[in-house]
């Protein structure tokens, strides 16, 4: 009883403190959301940032920090960028297309964000013209140049199991004599969305309650890798293709590529960056229809405080946790049509509650997903969104970390993309084929296979957390879904689910509150 009282008191104080911090420190935050490298600003204990659906809130558990010289926020390399350039607080520490377009308008394309190296479709294109930056401006995509053949992974040499051919090259970069596959540096250019650098403490926790896969990679039942900087076993949730195993490793890689730094970041800088990334928790904190998502009357899994109090890396697909906790307080049994007219707020909340239930309860056949159905689960595997690939408590990524080909990169499932390069992968006869596509695969992004060189990994990427979705459209690694409705439509088509219009709307409403 006393403990419960203390818990409530603590929560109330935290919320009050958070609100007070906003009032004191953060009054100007919403009017000036873009964070330029080196801005002389304080990153407060709690901040909120406007987006189309409401506000995204960030709790910085270590308290206010001066960012002017902080290595996450200060420009480090010659191109004037910092980590914050592509991981904006207003965009759930990712980058939305609306923000990118606004930045282009505000700076006439001169912001370091649009640096030739990866903020344009190819460095060899004439810079400063919108068409040279179309993938960033229209889909929020950053160019990632992956070495080919793959560099040694975890210190082990990689002999690719497949050859790769550039079938179509709309950006020109894969066939470019200086930057392409046949250039002296031999690289494959793929284009991906920046992942949200928020709730990293959850992503870096080894999974619990799934023995022996707390220490073993589900796909091959081999031990999970060890962080090169720590020597400790780490999950592989951080990056889409798993090449950066720890925040420090990721920051090092990003500094050398995206920031074009000549020398590696110092140990002190890396320590500071990792500490910062592990101390910030974020989620949508206010919804334009539902109101304050952090109030005691709201579902406890909403708002950034939920990420602070929630245990990390736990299975959420059970009758207690329900992935994002209880939503029944928003459920409504009143007549739908009446409600819409009488009380939009109540109707919206009821829709969110239904959406949470659809997310975790409505099963469908998950079939032909490379590196998922074939890792022992069976084909098909009948699960819901929440009991399948998004089963982690409060976060919604896949707990037993797995890279998978959901059809977002590979033919025939991906949305036809004329703006992205198209590769033909031909696997050797003596290796296992991609389980459902065979040994000849057409893909916009070979994904994990560019790290491991394995045919079975072609097109596979790591599932993502579902927090802050309203702040960071478009979705999927290739930015294929412009909004949440397109995201739902993709899965409905991909898995032949047959959601009704109402169910789709409920799912969209549910996801926008996360």
């Amino acid at each position, binding site marked *: 009883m006393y403990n*419960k009282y203390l*818990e409530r008191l603590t*929560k109330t104080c935290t919320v009050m403190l958070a609100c007070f911090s906003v009032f004191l420190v953060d009054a100007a935050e919403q009017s000036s959301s873009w964070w330029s490298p080196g801005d002389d600003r304080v990153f407060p204990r709690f901040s909120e940032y406007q987006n189309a659906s409401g506000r995204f809130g960030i709790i910085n558990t270590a308290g206010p920090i001066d960012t002017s010289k902080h290595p996450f926020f200060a420009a480090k390399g010659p191109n004037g960028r910092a980590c914050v350039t592509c991981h904006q607080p207003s965009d759930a520490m990712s980058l939305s297309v609306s923000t990118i377009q606004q930045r282009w308008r505000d700076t006439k394309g001169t912001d370091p964000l649009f640096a030739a190296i990866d903020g344009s479709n190819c460095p060899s294109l004439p810079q400063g013209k919108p068409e040279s930056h179309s993938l960033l401006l229209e889909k929020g995509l950053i160019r990632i140049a992956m070495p080919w053949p793959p560099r040694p992974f975890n210190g082990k040499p990689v002999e690719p199991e497949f050859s790769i051919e550039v079938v179509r090259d709309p950006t020109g970069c894969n066939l470019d004599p200086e930057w392409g596959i046949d250039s002296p540096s031999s690289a494959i250019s793929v284009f991906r969305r920046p992942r949200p650098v928020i709730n990293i403490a959850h992503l870096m926790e080894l999974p*619990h*309650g799934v*023995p*022996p*896969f*707390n220490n*073993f990679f589900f796909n*091959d*039942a*081999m*031990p999970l890798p060890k962080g090169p900087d720590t020597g400790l076993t780490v999950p592989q949730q951080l990056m889409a293709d798993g090449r950066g195993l720890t925040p420090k490793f990721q920051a090092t890689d990003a500094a050398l590529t995206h920031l074009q730094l000549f020398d590696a970041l110092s140990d002190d800088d890396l320590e500071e960056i990792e500490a910062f990334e592990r101390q910030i928790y974020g989620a949508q904190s206010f919804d334009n229809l539902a109101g304050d998502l952090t109030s005691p009357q709201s*579902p*406890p*899994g909403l708002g950034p405080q*939920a990420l602070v*109090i*929630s*245990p990390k890396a*736990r*299975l959420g*697909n*059970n*009758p*207690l*946790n*329900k992935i994002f*906790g*209880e939503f029944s*307080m928003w459920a409504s049994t009143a007549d739908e049509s009446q409600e819409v007219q009488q009380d939009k707020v109540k109707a919206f909340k009821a829709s969110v509650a239904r959406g949470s239930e659809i997310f975790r*309860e409505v*099963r469908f*056949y998950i*079939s*032909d997903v490379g590196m998922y*159905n*074939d*890792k*022992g*689960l*069976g*084909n*098909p*595997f*009948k*699960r819901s969104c929440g009991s399948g690939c998004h089963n982690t*408590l*409060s976060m919604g990524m896949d707990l037993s970390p797995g890279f998978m080909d959901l059809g977002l990169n590979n033919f025939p499932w991906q949305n036809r993309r004329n703006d992205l390069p198209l590769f033909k992968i031909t696997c050797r006869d003596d290796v*296992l*084929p991609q*389980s*459902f596509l*065979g040994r000849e695969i057409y893909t916009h992004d070979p994904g994990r296979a560019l790290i491991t060189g394995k045919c079975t990994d072609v097109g596979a990427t790591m599932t993502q957390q579902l927090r802050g979705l309203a702040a960071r459209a478009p979705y999927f690694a290739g930015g294929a879904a412009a909004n949440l409705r397109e995201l739902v439509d993709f899965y409905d088509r991909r898995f032949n689910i047959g959601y009704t219009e109402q169910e789709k709307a409920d799912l969209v409403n549910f996801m926008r509150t996360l």
Partner: protein
Amino acid sequence: MRVYSPSTTLRIAIIIWTCLTSGKILANEHTAFVTCPIARDIGPQSDVCFIAEYNGKTYGLFDPNGYNRPMLKHKVMVEGEVIDGEMICGATRIKGVLSVMREEISPECNQILPDDGSVQTKNNNLFLRMPEEHRQRAFKLMAQVADNPEASLQEAIYDPAPFPPVKPPYVRQKLNLHYPFNSKRSSGPELRKLLYLIHYAKFSGGHFVVKSYQGATRLDNGEVMEEKSGMAEERADMFAELLTELGISKKDYSIEVQPESVAATGVGDWKNRRISVELNPAE
């Protein structure tokens, strides 16, 4: 000596013959075949289960050895004993192992039977599979949710208890890890056993003797399917990596590879696809 009439003798003979041929006195019939799996929908709140039709009979496919479930678009090799009277997925159970034939895609294996209500689904509540103490805590939290919704964010599924310390006298430990056909992926339950063996070695010290095998399977139709050449070596390499990753230094284990497939007999051939591990404690 008691003498039976011819009719009684005949009756006894018939009874004995019937018992023998019905399989209830004889050991269960062994079977091995490769076929398309068929998925069966068993209701909106359940995963699908799998069956296979072979030689006019329908069998329920159950994978007891960890996650190695059948896949449509691929054939499945079924090896084991037919357990008459035990039903899985609405069909006779085969106690044994399944191997998905992943080398090639078989588009013709693509049948899903709709739910016809004939298979009763098990309760899917994860809590029922947990240890009693954990289950009670989870149910207690569930009872609190109405008054305290935050309880729904507390962990309900816990890590298993760590292995208890091992006390002397230390004795030789043996473990077999079995593998699907042409596969080097261990099963989750067997990995747990290996982890216990390594835990044991931390107390006992000693040396691991590892032998890696590959096998062949004699199918019911007489065909013998051999694992691909080099499979035993691939398993050995992967196992050596596994031991190293788990903290066993090279001086503390030896690995012997048996490169020739163990001959197939048609009975329990799957047991030959294995790695055998023996821990000989320090003197």
